[in-house]
């Protein structure tokens, strides 16, 4: 029998639960998300409260991550920064996935001239490195939360167009799409109730990897000053602020960097774990 989605479906969960990396990654990401949501209660200080007497204090009991050049508590800023960084990452990836997948499925299903135009457009967009693309868009649109999300979403769209289109082309070869047409189903119904559920595995795997990359892009843009304007804390922004005193007060940059690193590792473990769990040939 063919290696269709149907063949391996019931064991996906079992295989996922056996994968230590996946569970660890999920735990890491969940901890980060909870910390971000609970920032107002977890943060020991106001992230924007300045204190001239406590400028550049090394980590101690009162300020676990130390303080920055304005005497602000770095731990509080990292926690509050997680809200912006994760929010931007999630919303922009979600937007990119939804728009990109919709375009990709339609292009792959109909083929023809629509498909060729879409492929040409994505090829052009994909030829820009993700960061350059984001940089360009933020520079043109202006640095604000909304524009940042739009810029990062736009960089994600072509990747998902390509993935969804490719998977749709494979699904279109399967007889059940013809069976649906013979039964008189509308194209919309076939595309989004029959093709989409069968390619969702791959989309989800790639989305988790792109989420990591979106958060990294946001951090990078913040690092070069193209994110939400100060004093609002974002991870990349905190790293940047700490850069001026990197040798005297390394804690200012180290802790937000570690937060970024932890999310990257977590999301990549999730992505790899999901891919292994849903790939029938890569059974561990």
């Amino acid at each position, binding site marked *: 029998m063919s290696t269709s989605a149907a063949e391996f479906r019931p064991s996906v969960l079992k295989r996922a639960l056996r994968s230590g990396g996946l569970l660890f990654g999920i735990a890491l990401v969940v901890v980060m998300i909870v910390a971000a949501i609970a920032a107002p209660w977890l943060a020991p200080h106001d992230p924007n409260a300045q204190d001239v007497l406590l400028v550049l204090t090394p980590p101690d009991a009162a300020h676990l991550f130390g303080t920055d050049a304005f005497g602000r508590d770095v731990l509080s800023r990292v926690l509050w920064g997680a809200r912006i960084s994760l929010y931007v990452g999630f919303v922009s990836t979600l937007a990119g996935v939804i728009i990109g997948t919709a375009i990709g499925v339609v292009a792959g299903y109909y083929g023809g001239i629509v498909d060729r135009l879409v492929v040409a457009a994505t090829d052009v967009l994909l030829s820009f490195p993700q960061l350059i693309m984001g940089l360009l868009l933020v520079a043109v649109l202006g640095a604000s939360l909304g524009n940042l999300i739009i810029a990062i979403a736009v960089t994600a769209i072509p990747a998902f167009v390509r993935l969804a289109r490719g998977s749709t082309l494979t699904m279109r070869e399967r007889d059940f799409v*013809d069976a649906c047409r013979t039964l008189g189903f509308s194209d919309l119904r076939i595309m989004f109730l029959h093709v989409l559920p069968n390619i969702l595995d791959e989309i989800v795997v790639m989305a988790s990897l792109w989420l990591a990359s979106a958060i990294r892009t946001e951090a990078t843009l913040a690092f070069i000053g193209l994110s939400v304007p100060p004093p609002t804390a974002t991870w990349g922004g905190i790293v940047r602020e700490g850069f001026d005193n990197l040798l005297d007060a390394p804690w200012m940059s180290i802790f937000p960097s570690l937060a970024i690193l932890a999310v990257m590792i977590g999301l990549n473990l999730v992505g790899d774990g999901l891919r292994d769990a849903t790939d029938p040939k890569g059974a561990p």
Partner: protein
Amino acid sequence: MSETLLSVRDLRKIYKTRRGWPIPRTALVRALDGVSFDVRPGEALGVVGESGCGKSTVARVALRLQEADGGSVTFAGADVLGASKSELRALRRRMQMVFQDPASSLDGRQRIVDALGEPIRVHGIAHGAAVRPLVARLLDEVGLPKSALDRYPHEFSGGQRQRIGIARALALGPDLVFADEPVSALDVSVQAQILKLLETLRRERHLAFVFISHDLGVVRYFCQRVVVMYLGRVVESGPVPEIFVDPLHPYTRLLKASSPEPDPVKAVAMTFQEGEPPSPVDPPKGCHFHPRCPIADARCRTERPELRDFAPGRTVACHHVG
């Protein structure tokens, strides 16, 4: 006897392939080169031929899964190829298809009750709680238990999946079913069960079939009439068993010889040249069959034989017959 359910006339389908570098050349593949046949209500018509002869394309074009490049398809007086979207929707209820590979023809993410209930709901035959008993009755008709309702396709064997595929084709209550090699992917023992099921359905529902197959034994068992195709053309048509007892076209004789009867007394005569059918990209001139034909002469190499009536109900396209 004279009424016709499906009438296919001079059906044409041409595929274009572009090959070559740096200057691609366009080659035309005539998958269907003027195919005509009729199907009567409640009749099983076999379409036989080697792979690549266009027999599957007939079904796909007649069901508008692909658009034709010429000819006409008339179903119960209605023009199929020119039907509008809403007309086509109405026609779909009466014309269905059973696919060769039951694993690929079912959506692995749908439970059986959803897969079979969806066409019922989409076409407004029943809604809500009324769908489930209808699906259960369909499953019963194809010999599957009620417990199959809430299971997924991967939980069934190949034969059971093909039964589900047949039940889905029956869901809208069609008059005609195109069966594209419906038993070729199954074990021989399962083939017989599925064929018996189809035969029962044909009698009880007065269902017509266009039964596409390369297996003469199966066609001989199931069909009342047969159309033999070779490289996109009909070379012979006639009733079973005459067409097998006394084949007229040399190609039909070749098919018969390659599918010997299991009788130890009869010797198997293999007087034909073996070999593959020529490429449909560049078919031979004249009669398509002449390179493999033992009685071909100069006329066969240049002039295309037309399909002529030979006897009542029998037609053949060969210069040397009649």
